């Protein structure tokens, strides 16, 4: 049987970057094939060319043995190639059915379409009510729409670009069940992820890219996460160095009875949240996405206007009524989970993005004028210290690969040496090497005396990083306890909603 997909010598040049350099590999029918590589290695670029979003500058794509040109995604779908993107293109105000109908190339009567959708959902156990409005769905459910949409076309190759970075562990398990079933029916899957334990659990083969070149092919089941990470980076992976026997100092951040109002129909506010973080301490906040993490971050950063002065204090000073800028001046920096359009402005240069949050703490403003030299110098330092792959401080934020933008944003906040740093999902979409570097930078910041809050749903990350842990569920935060007191099962149960005090 011919290979389902065969790439030979695929090359793509962007101004200043060779994103793919003569990449050749093959995917067999029914194979689950992983595409691995550091941030900016060229993974997304490669699959975009297979799906017809971009055109290669050189090389050949063979489909079932025949050379093909894929001029656009519609042609790709006609060949039997489906793709699920990390960012969904769904209309929130429409129903699942309407969204799918809008995305179809051929017009099918809605009754017939609904019957086919139900059939696909039945076959693959993708449970979803076709008449629900998208706005009421969780991220995992939204992704199911995209998968159903792709499956309706009976694809012979399904491409998934970082599908699990926004999913809860349970949703990941469900997704893998579907993917395995698809593969058993002969559909090939090309799977991109930075979560190497998932690759080990799911994939048959892994192709590793570095700097746009194919550097290795391996069997993930025969490797460890660490050995795959090292193949990606090309050198050894550093462990987090956490000085033993650290002592925590004075309380830095004290939150007392913080409550937020519901702002939109679908966001979860926080109610009566209290915790203390001391100098040198990293507090992890575990929880399944959508349980009030966003409200908590916005309330701490000051984006959500506070109503009680005493609800938040830093170094004993009540800051509950201050706005974002004043809070930053008093040493509280925050990083929201959404990078594009929230933590950074895609159309602005990195230098201008530094002005966004660092202008006051680092004296980039004199008499109302921006000192662009200072912004540029600082940005250069962030790029160098955090190994951000970018053409320089003048590159726009939107031109960076997802992981590199995250490294820049984390660097921009950490190098301001905040007294208190609150970060949400610090390593989403970041490769293993960069994740280790970000973790180390957070630990170093804590060692230097700052108090840090890490909001994450990645338990491995929290266990490696935190000193104390609390769990957020439905907008309520459990009491924090030293990380060593928790067993994995216990954290899992708490995330599911059984609070310590209620269970007792």
């Amino acid at each position, binding site marked *: 049987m011919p290979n389902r997909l065969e790439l030979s010598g695929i090359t793509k040049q962007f*101004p200043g970057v060779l994103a793919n350099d003569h990449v050749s590999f093959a995917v067999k029918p029914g194979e689950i094939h992983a595409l691995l590589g550091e941030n900016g290695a060229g993974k997304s670029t490669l699959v975009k060319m297979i799906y017809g979003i971009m*055109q290669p500058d050189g090389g050949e794509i063979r489909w079932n043995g*025949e050379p093909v040109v894929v*001029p656009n995604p519609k042609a790709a779908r006609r060949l039997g190639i489906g793709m699920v993107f990390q960012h969904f293109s769904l209309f929130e105000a429409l129903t699942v059915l309407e969204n799918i109908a809008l995305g179809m190339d051929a017009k099918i009567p809605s009754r017939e379409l609904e019957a086919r959708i139900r059939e696909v959902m039945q076959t693959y156990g993708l449970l979803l009510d076709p008449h629900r409005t998208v706005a009421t769905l969780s991220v995992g459910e939204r992704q199911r729409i995209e998968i159903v949409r792709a499956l309706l076309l009976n694809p012979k190759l399904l491409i998934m670009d970082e599908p699990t970075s926004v999913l809860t562990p349970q949703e990941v398990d469900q997704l893998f069940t579907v993917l395995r079933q698809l593969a058993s029916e002969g559909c090939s899957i090309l799977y991109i992820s930075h979560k190497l334990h998932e690759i080990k659990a799911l994939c048959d083969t892994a192709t590793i890219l570095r700097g746009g070149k194919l550097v290795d092919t391996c069997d993930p089941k025969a490797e460890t996460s660490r050995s795959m990470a090292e193949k990606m980076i090309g050198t050894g992976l550093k462990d987090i160095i956490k000085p033993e026997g650290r002592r925590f100092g004075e309380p830095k951040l004290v939150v007392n009875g913080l409550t937020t109002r519901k702002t939109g129909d679908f966001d979860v506010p926080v109610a009566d949240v209290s915790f203390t973080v001391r100098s040198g301490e990293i507090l992890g906040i575990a929880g399944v996405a959508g349980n009030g993490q966003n409200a908590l971050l916005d309330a701490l950063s000051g984006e959500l206007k506070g109503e009680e002065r005493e609800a938040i204090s830093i170094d004993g000073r009540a800051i509950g009524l201050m706005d974002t800028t004043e809070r930053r001046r008093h040493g509280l920096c925050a990083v929201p989970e959404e990078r594009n359009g929230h933590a950074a*402005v895609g159309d602005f240069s990195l230098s201008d993005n530094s002005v*966004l949050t660092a202008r006051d703490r680092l004296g980039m403003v004199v008499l109302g*004028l921006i000192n662009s030299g200072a912004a540029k110098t600082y940005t250069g330092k962030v790029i160098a210290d955090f190994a951000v792959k970018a053409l320089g401080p003048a590159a726009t934020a939107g031109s960076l690969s997802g992981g590199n933008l995250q490294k820049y944003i984390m660097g921009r906040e950490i190098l301001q040496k905040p007294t208190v740093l609150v970060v949400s999902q610090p390593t989403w979409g970041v490769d293993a090497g960069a994740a280790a570097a970000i973790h180390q930078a957070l630990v170093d910041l804590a060692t230097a005396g700052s108090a840090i809050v890490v909001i994450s749903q990645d338990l491995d990350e929290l266990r490696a990083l935190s000193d104390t842990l609390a769990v957020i569920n439905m907008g309520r935060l459990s009491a924090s306890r030293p990380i060593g007191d928790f067993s994995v099962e216990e954290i899992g149960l708490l995330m599911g909603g059984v609070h310590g005090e209620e269970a007792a």
Partner: protein
Amino acid sequence: MMQFRLEKRREPSRFMLYATPVAAVALTMIIGAVIFSVIGYDGIGAVREIFLTPLTNSFKWQDLGVKAAPLIIIGVGLSIAYRANVWNIGAEGQYIMGGLAATWVALASHGAGGWWTLPAMMLAGMAGGAAYGAIPALLKTRLNVNEILTSLMLTYASVQLIYYLVRAPWKDPMGMGFPQTRRFASEALLPNIFPGTIVHAGVPIAIIVALIAWFIMSRSVFGYQMRVVGAAPHAARYGGFSENKTIWLAMLVSGGLAGLAGMLEVAGPFQRMVPGFPTNYGFTAIIVAFLGRLNPLGVIFAGIVMAITFVGGEVAQTTIGLSNSATGVFQAMMLFFLLAGDILVRYRLKRVVPQVEAGA
């Protein structure tokens, strides 16, 4: 068969950013010549009279300066507001209110004026325009009413206000029944900067305003605020910039500059308030702002280009009998081609190598 498709650029193209306005003007000239030839005019002649005569005939240069000045001042204000995604469409109304406020100062101080009259009129003009711009800002920030609608509708109200004022309370008693105010006293009239021409002090003021605005937009926190709120409102909030405050600033600045232009017009070319004071500068300046790429320096050039079409339109009217509305056709075409060409700033044309398309 060769196929082309659009591919998104990672970075907006700098070259295209500046090339598309030039191309838009060139295309307007070409297509304009064709259209007017087809409908039976001397198309080439029309384009020559409208776009070239004002430049080659040195007698027309002073007209260009006088027409460009208000367009540039209003266009600069609009370019600042549009950067922040605040769509002030009512600059015409703010221009009128600025003119009326300045007229009030001129009439009230008539016979008792001095060196301070003109500065006082300028302040009044800016205050009048800004106050009129404040109404849409208030409605938008308090009640979330769309500023496009309110600012536009307020324009029509301001036109009626002129009609009322020049017919009743401000009517010139010696004006033989004409609905207009008396001619301003000499302290309330703009000095001419080149004796023997009609070039008044508003022309250098326009250039100075544009230069100051350019400096502020590119270097100051205020300019940064306008840009970031327009580009990414959510990120702006994260960076500590309030959206409501930005709407207020944008409306006050763009309204104030339109009001300044109104003062310069009434104290310059008009010399009194007349019902014909609204000359659509406030609307044309919208095209100027976009043609100038929402950049105050670009607005200077765009203002001159637009002034050329006005002056040239008048020339063509007398020399080849082209109707005055031809000017509007050319101006609209320019905006159309500019906006259409804008896609090339963010996308590039990529050739798809022709081969077998669907092998399976």
